[in-house]
């Protein structure tokens, strides 16, 4: 049988419909207006350099749990992914389970931040945010939720300050940086990171964008825009698409010294598994983590493959370790409808059982 059965009249109709959708959808594009970055009201409670610590306002009449939760996002990309629209907000989902949610917004580093190290971020910024929350609530310990690279930071922080963390949740967090299916890791092995940082200082967000788009260039820079034409007649879908588009290309620059150490110690030397990582001169021993730990990973994650996260099992000193697998991708775990129904309620329930 011949494999292509496209009649010319059907083809002409399809082409015409495509062009018409494009033309008609133009109005929705023009009417989209400003794209907001985050939908849940929040208050800035602490600021230091480019960092802002936000506390989200309570929604509804949910009883608030006594132990607050600090969300530590990655340095790459912006944290409003967790709160991108009303019906796709991890933050709202957490608030609905009674969590008192704080989030660190790292801001946009510039060349003045070039010298910031991992020590500055972890033993500096994160520790001072944790202390601020502890003082505000009169507590010795708080809950921590780390996302992606923020999860790695949360592991490092908890290993260095176990007395300040009550429960730890990691989401799509890389622990083993050299699993065979990790493209990013494969690509970075031959890069002279010292030359890169000595030359550029900070790592530009554009370079990171290029790297992420290079994982699936034809889908992410080509097919996506052809498919978008099908959404153009729905103003809400257009706005949602534009929000994602804004987020994808909204990559902050990376502080040079932090990037240097993170790539060398984690991606190139796989330090969490092989040992030898030091933060501020203090060696990292994940066995110092003895608090309850919930490790969530996405089964179709092409940025942090499942095995990269699951390697955490057995590395810590906790006797309360739980894994949760989500059938989706690295971004879907925050923005998909399924994640709102499955992931955030599970996190809330797990925390509530352990937070008194």
């Amino acid at each position: 049988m011949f494999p292509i059965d496209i009649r010319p009249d059907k083809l002409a109709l399809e082409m015409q419909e495509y062009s018409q959708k494009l033309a008609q959808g133009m109005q929705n594009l023009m009417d989209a207006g400003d794209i907001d970055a985050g939908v849940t009201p929040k208050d800035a409670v602490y600021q230091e350099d480019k960092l802002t610590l936000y506390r989200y306002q309570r929604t509804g009449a949910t009883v608030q749990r006594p132990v607050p939760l600090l969300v530590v996002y990655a340095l790459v990309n912006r944290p409003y992914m967790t709160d991108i629209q009303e019906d796709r907000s991890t933050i709202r989902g957490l608030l609905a389970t009674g969590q008192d949610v704080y989030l660190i917004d790292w801001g946009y580093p510039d060349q003045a931040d070039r010298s910031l190290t991992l020590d500055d971020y972890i033993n500096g910024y994160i520790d001072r945010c944790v202390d601020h929350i502890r003082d505000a609530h009169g507590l010795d310990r708080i809950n921590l939720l780390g996302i992606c690279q923020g999860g790695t930071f949360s592991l490092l922080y908890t290993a260095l300050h176990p007395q300040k963390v009550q429960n730890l949740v990691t989401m799509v967090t890389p622990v083993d940086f050299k699993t065979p299916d990790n493209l990013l890791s494969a690509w970075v092995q031959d890069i002279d990171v010292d030359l890169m940082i000595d030359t550029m200082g900070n790592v530009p967000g554009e370079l990171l964008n290029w790297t992420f788009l290079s994982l699936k260039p034809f889908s992410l820079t080509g097919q996506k825009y052809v498919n978008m034409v099908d959404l153009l007649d729905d103003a809400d879908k257009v706005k949602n698409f534009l929000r994602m588009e804004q987020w994808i290309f909204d990559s902050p620059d990376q502080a040079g010294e932090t990037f240097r150490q993170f790539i060398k110690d984690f991606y190139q030397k796989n330090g969490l598994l092989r040992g030898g990582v030091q933060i501020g001169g203090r060696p990292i021993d994940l066995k110092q983590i003895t608090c309850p730990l919930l490790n969530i990973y996405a089964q179709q994650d092409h940025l942090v493959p499942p095995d990269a996260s699951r390697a955490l099992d057995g590395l810590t000193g906790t006797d309360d370790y739980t894994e949760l697998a989500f059938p989706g991708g690295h971004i879907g775990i925050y923005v998909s409808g399924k994640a709102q129904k499955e992931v955030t309620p599970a996190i809330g329930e797990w925390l509530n059982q352990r937070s008194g």
Partner: protein
Amino acid sequence: MTDNGLFNNDWMELQRRYWEGWTDLSRKAMGLEKPKTNPWEAAMEHWWQAFKPAAPDPSKVFMDRMLEQGKVFFGLVEQMTRGLGATGAATDPTAGWDVLNKTLTGMQDAFTGAMGRGMTGADDDNATQRLLGFWELPLDNWQRMMSTLAPTPGDWLRNMPHGPVQDSLHRVLSAPGLGYSREEQGQYQELIRSGLDYQRALTEYASFFSQLGVKSVQRMRELLTERGDTERPIESARALYDAWIGCCEDVYAEEVSTRDYARIHGRLVNAQMALKQRLSIMVDETLGAWNMPTRAEVRTLQDRLQETRRENKRLRHDMDDIKRRVAAIATTSGPAKSPVARKKTVVRKKTVAKPDTP
């Protein structure tokens, strides 16, 4: 599969004449020259050129991107269905396969030819250009990104001579500088060498993707064979486009997972950084000559300042800790007691008479 006889050249010709007549009329009204594109692509381009001036700036960039991909979509469909009508592929699959195989072979030849002349050439027709241009996406993304990071365009070295010319240049550049300006000569030599190294790395990177274009066409051929064998024909232009994207992504994913690609990728990034570093050094030299702050000086100050701030914050933290402990001690020991008058102890010296000395 239909056999109503509609799948023939007459119908396609009618469609083309309709669109060309419409676009001709519009073109004359707008004063535009005749494009060498397929009719759907021409109509879409025509609409956008008419509408673009009224569109807000942010939308223009976005729409340009969507339209570009739309053209790839149309171009692919035109490429793959070109000439099929004449053979009546619906009623004569063998003849249809002959035409399709020629098309696929033509696409592979276009990629192979493109490897020699650097991807798209003026000789290619528009549909082929779009197809080849599509496989330039990864390279195009790199060049756009580099354009944002440097004062020079991202593709400025792409068409520099390479091969034996480069080797000769390298030999010339190896000659040491002499006299007062030997250091400056050495720096310029290093700069040019870095430029040549980057250009070589870029060519290697582009060549890698040209080869993948050939492989992706082969993968498409296999997919179409499988669809024919299992009697699951592709029935729409979108499905054809999605199948092509799937083949490209599959081939790409397999190849970029290899050590070879990691090396090529690493060489490209390292060569670009080496070139930028050379440029930075020379800019710093110039700034220093003009008695202006250089990047190296600013970085030294930044490092020292950050170390001072780190120390400052550590000391503040320790002070706060001490204050807390002192406050805690004051709280637990209660109010301070009043001082007790100390009893003065009087020591009486016992006087013993000294014996008379003789």
